[in-house]
Structures are given as C-alpha cells and as structure tokens.
C-alpha cells in the first residue's frame, strides 16, 4: 500500500521536513529531523531502484490525474540511479554536518541550514523523478533558491557576493529553460515529456524546435557549469560552508546533467531532423576546451577548494564529452561518471572540510607537512585524488575506460589520446598536494590539532572507500547504468 506511493513520498518527505525544522527551531532536534529524513530518502531511493530493476519503469499519477493531463512522476532506471546518488550524498553529509555546521555557524542559525538543506534535497530528488517539463522547472527553482541561501551561509563575506553571482546566473539559466519549454509547449500543447516526444515527431516547423533546443541547452548548461558558463562555480564552491560544497559538488551539477540527458535522449529522441544539426560537434568542442583549460587552471591554484572547483568543471567536461559521443559506451561513460565523480568529489570536499576545521587554512602554501599531523585525512585525499586521475582500481578509471572505448569506436583516436593526456594534468594537481603534505617539512605555524572528530571522518572515509569499491565492483555504477542506457538508446538518440 505504502510502496505504491513511494515516488511521491520520495519528494514529499524532505519537502515537509523543512517547515517542521523551522517550527522546531532547536538545533539538535533540527539535525535529528534532517538526518532521519536523509536516511529515509536513501532507503526509499534504494527500494525504488530495486523495484525498477524488477518491474521496469514506474509511472505515478500525482493526485490520480492520469498523464499526460496530470503531472506524472516517472521512475526509470536512469532516474532511480540519480535518486540513489543524491540521497546517498545527503545521508552521508548529515552526520558530517553535525560537527562541521556547529563549528561554522552560530547555534541559533543552525536550524535554518537544516531547513534549507531539506528543501534542496527535495528539489534535487524532484528534478530526477518528475516526468513533467514544467514541474521540473519548479523543482529546479526550489533546489536553486535553497542553494543560494546555503552558499550565502559561508563564514566570509565573499560567500555573499558568490551567492549573489550564482543567483543572477542561475535565474537566467532557469528562465532560459522555461523559455525553451514554453516554445515546446506552443508547438505541442503538452508538458508531459513522453507525450511531448511523440508529438514533436509530427511538428513540421523546425525553427521553433531549434530555438527551444538552444534555449534549453544554454539554460541547463548554466546550471551544470558547462564551459564557458561556469563562472559562478569556483567562487560558490570556495566560499560555501564545507558540507554544502561537498553536497552540491556531488549532486547539484549532476542532476542538471541528468536533465540535459533527459531532454536530448527522451524529449528530442523522435525528431531525427534535429540530429543533423551540429549540436553534437559543438558540445564536443566545449567539453574538450573545458577539460583542457580548466585542468590547467586547477593546476595553478593555491587554494585547495578552488583547485577542486576548477577540477569539477573539467570533470563535467568528461561527462558532456560522453554525451556528445552519443554511442552506448559514450552514454555509459557519461552516466557512470555522474556517480563516480559525485562520490569522488564528495569525498575530496568533505576531507578538505576536515582540514579547514582543524588547521583553519586550505591554502597549499600553508599546509606543508600535513600528512604528519593528519595522516588519515591526507591519505584519504590521496586515495580520492587517485580516483580523480583515473588510476586503475578506482571509480575514476571505470569512466575513463568507457570514454576511451567510446572514442575509439567512433574512430577518434585523438579524443582517446586527449582523455589520457588530461588525466596526466589531473595527476599534476593531485601531486602538488602529495608533495606539500608528504614531502615537505611540517610548517611551524600549522596547528597540532590531530585528526577530526569521527562524526566527520567516518562519512568522508566511507566515500573514499566507495571510490575504490566502485572501481573494483561495478555491478551498480556500470551494470545498473547499462540498463538505463539501453532504455535511452531504444528511445532513440539525439
């Protein structure tokens, strides 16, 4: 009985716990509600994923209004995969937040953080689960508005200007998306994605479709920090509270990538005339520029958080590169990297947050000899860094493998060479950390604080362990994705 309503509960539970937290106000109670919500969301996402694997796509009519007239929640393999990623990151971020947020925010503001986090979680889960293009916009704005607040909670005043910058860029992005959806609605008279895909096949006029595709690509491109629309990201990630950075880096941009895949491979799947346009080549070009230039920029950053932020833009380039290859192995690489990079970057940002808490600084030039003060943390960063490079045996390698395979299948050996060469740049910036932390004498000014509390260390190390686990045992991140990709390819590829 209750299992029937899981798709709705997945979104409603986090959505309702936000006002509950605001009513309770006590910081400890707020933390308990947020943590229970996150773990409940994870449990629901896993049950949904298993049901999808057994029974196929689940369709849920909100308020029993039959689709395409009512809003449909549609959980297919890809949506379930994204749900698991988002709720997993939330479930691990909450124990970490207990100590981290207490250290970074005044006690009377803590409940606001937890309320905003729950709203953000509801928005991100909603984006993944909904099958309605306009409903997606609403969830996009729920998650974005709460994200702006979360970033503005950062301790230094730069957090405010970073949040403002993101608010302006993010709103322009979301509005571009609505313009695109509006044009599609004018052409088809429906907002249900599956219905829209069928009706688009009968539309004769090509020009509005091109405009809609362009508006949606640019709008979502702003949200997922597609080069050159990434300017908001480094500042936002650098100045937000540590746990916010880790949660957003692992989920927000990934969910936007999911939206892009959804539109390219579901909504525009049955309009083959669009496939002749050079969208694919354009996306490939932007991805390549993103990977090369942002990896190089990351190499020269002193601030550890900023380095990882630029590396994120480069890693998103790998994902969009996989999408632009439009082959089954390219898509496998892209969707697998959603998960692999989410786990890897989440681990790295959580560990950098640990360093920030204990040492008070995150600049490489001030962290000499970190490994002798915090051996476990430093080792964790190196392990997760290896996954970022793509060393065999880590999650990052699985993606690179599929990406190289997809490039070779397409006959572009230069692309394969590029993927390998840019991994070397990643090796460069991870090595800068190794050199600072292990090979230099401890800085006299570096506080002898020791390791962080277990509340923070355990979630971070669990993520580091999963970087290795998902590199060796790929039945979930590749096996499950394989099913999702088969579904997408069957629907036709844009």
């Amino acid at each position, binding site marked *: 009985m209750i299992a029937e309503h899981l798709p709705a509960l997945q979104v409603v539970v986090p959505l309702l716990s936000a006002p509950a937290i605001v009513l309770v106000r006590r910081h400890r109670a707020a933390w308990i509600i947020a943590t229970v919500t996150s773990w409940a969301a994870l449990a629901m996402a896993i049950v949904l994923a298993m049901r999808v694997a057994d029974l196929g796509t689940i369709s849920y009519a909100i308020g029993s209004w039959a689709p395409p007239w009512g809003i449909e929640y549609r959980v297919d393999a890809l949506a379930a995969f994204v749900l698991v990623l988002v709720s997993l990151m939330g479930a691990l971020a909450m124990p970490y937040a207990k100590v981290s947020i207490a250290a970074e925010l005044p006690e009377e503001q803590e409940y606001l953080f937890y309320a905003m986090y729950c709203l953000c979680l509801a928005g991100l889960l909603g984006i993944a689960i909904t099958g309605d293009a306009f409903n997606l916009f609403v969830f996009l704005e729920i998650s974005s508005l709460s994200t702006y607040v979360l970033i*503005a909670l950062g301790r230094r005043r730069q957090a*405010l*200007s970073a949040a403002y910058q993101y608010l302006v860029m993010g709103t*322009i992005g979301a*509005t571009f998306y*609505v313009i695109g959806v509006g044009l599609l*609605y004018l052409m088809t008279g429906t907002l249900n994605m599956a219905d829209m895909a069928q009706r688009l096949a009968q539309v004769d006029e090509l020009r509005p479709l091109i405009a809609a595709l362009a508006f949606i690509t640019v709008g979502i491109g702003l949200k997922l920090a597609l080069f050159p629309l990434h300017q908001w990201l480094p500042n936002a990630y650098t100045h937000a509270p540590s746990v916010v950075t880790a949660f957003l880096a692992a989920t927000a941009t990934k969910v936007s990538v999911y939206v892009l895949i959804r539109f390219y491979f579901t909504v525009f799947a049955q309009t083959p005339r669009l496939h002749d346009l050079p969208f694919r080549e354009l996306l490939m070009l932007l991805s390549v520029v993103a990977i090369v230039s942002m990896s190089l920029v990351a190499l020269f950053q002193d601030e550890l958080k900023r380095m990882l932020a630029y590396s994120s833009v480069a890693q998103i380039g790998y994902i969009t590169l996989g999408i632009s290859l439009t082959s089954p192995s390219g898509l496998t690489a892209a969707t697998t990297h959603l998960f692999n990079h989410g786990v890897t970057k989440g681990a790295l940002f959580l560990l950098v947050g640990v360093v920030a808490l204990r040492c008070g600084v995150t600049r490489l030039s001030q962290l000499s000899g970190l490994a002798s003060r915090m051996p476990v943390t430093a080792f964790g960063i190196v392990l997760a860094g290896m996954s970022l490079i793509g060393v065999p045996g880590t999650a990052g390698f699985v993606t690179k493998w599929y990406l190289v395979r997809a490039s070779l299948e397409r006959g572009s050996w230069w692309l394969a060479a590029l993927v390998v060469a840019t991994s070397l740049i990643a090796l460069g910036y991870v090595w800068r950390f190794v050199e600072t932390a292990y090979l230099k004498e401890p800085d006299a000014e570096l506080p002898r604080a020791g390791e962080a509390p277990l509340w923070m260390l355990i979630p971070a190390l669990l993520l580091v362990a999963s970087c290795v686990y998902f590199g060796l045992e790929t039945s979930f991140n590749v096996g499950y994705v394989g099913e999702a990709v088969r579904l997408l390819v069957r629907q036709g590829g844009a």
Partner: protein
Amino acid sequence: MNIASHYAYAVTIFLMVAGVFIVIARGNLVKKLIGLSIFQTSVYLLYIAPGKLIGGTAPIVAPEFTVYSNPLPHVLILTAIVVGVATLALGLAIVVRIREAYDSIEEDEILAADQAEDERQRS
C-alpha cells in the same frame, strides 16, 4: 505573416533582451535585480499571450459559447510568478547583507575589495 498580429511576440522579445541587457550592463546590484525581474516577466507574456483566442471565453462549457481560451498557461505562470517573487526577495535580501558587509552595492567596488583581501592573505 502579419506583423500586427504578432505584436505580443515583439513586446516579449523586447522585454527579454532589455532585461538581460540591464543584468549585463549595470554594475549596481539592485539594478541588476530589476533587469532580472524584467527578463522573467517577459516569459510570463510568452506563455500567456498565445493562450488567448480573440473572442474566446473562460473554459466553462455552455451551449452559447464554442471558442475557449486555454487556461493552462495562466496556471503555469501563476507558479512562475511565485518563483519570480521568491527570487527577487532572496536577491534583495542578499544585497542588504552585501551592503552591510562591504558598505557598497557597486559590483566593481566589491570586486576590488575581494581582490585586496586576497592579496593581503597571500602576503
């Protein structure tokens, strides 16, 4: 194609471009938000104008009416308006906080203050 029958689109596009232009060209944070608001408003028009049929009535089925306007865009835009109000409110709230922290709401002055602080930390 009749230009006069498409004037709603012309207004929409003018508002759209004007809004984005203000966001890009103005350095004052409040003015930027005004531009952003105008940009969002243009989208309301994009949805609502095509939903209206000349001579159409509200979609209440009655024997003397045969032409109805589409009510769905109104409902969608009602939601979008709420989102727009929330964005504007949050944006203004952040500007107030920025004014307290930087004592300025001019983009270039804030940027200069940030850079100066970065330099101080590095040295």
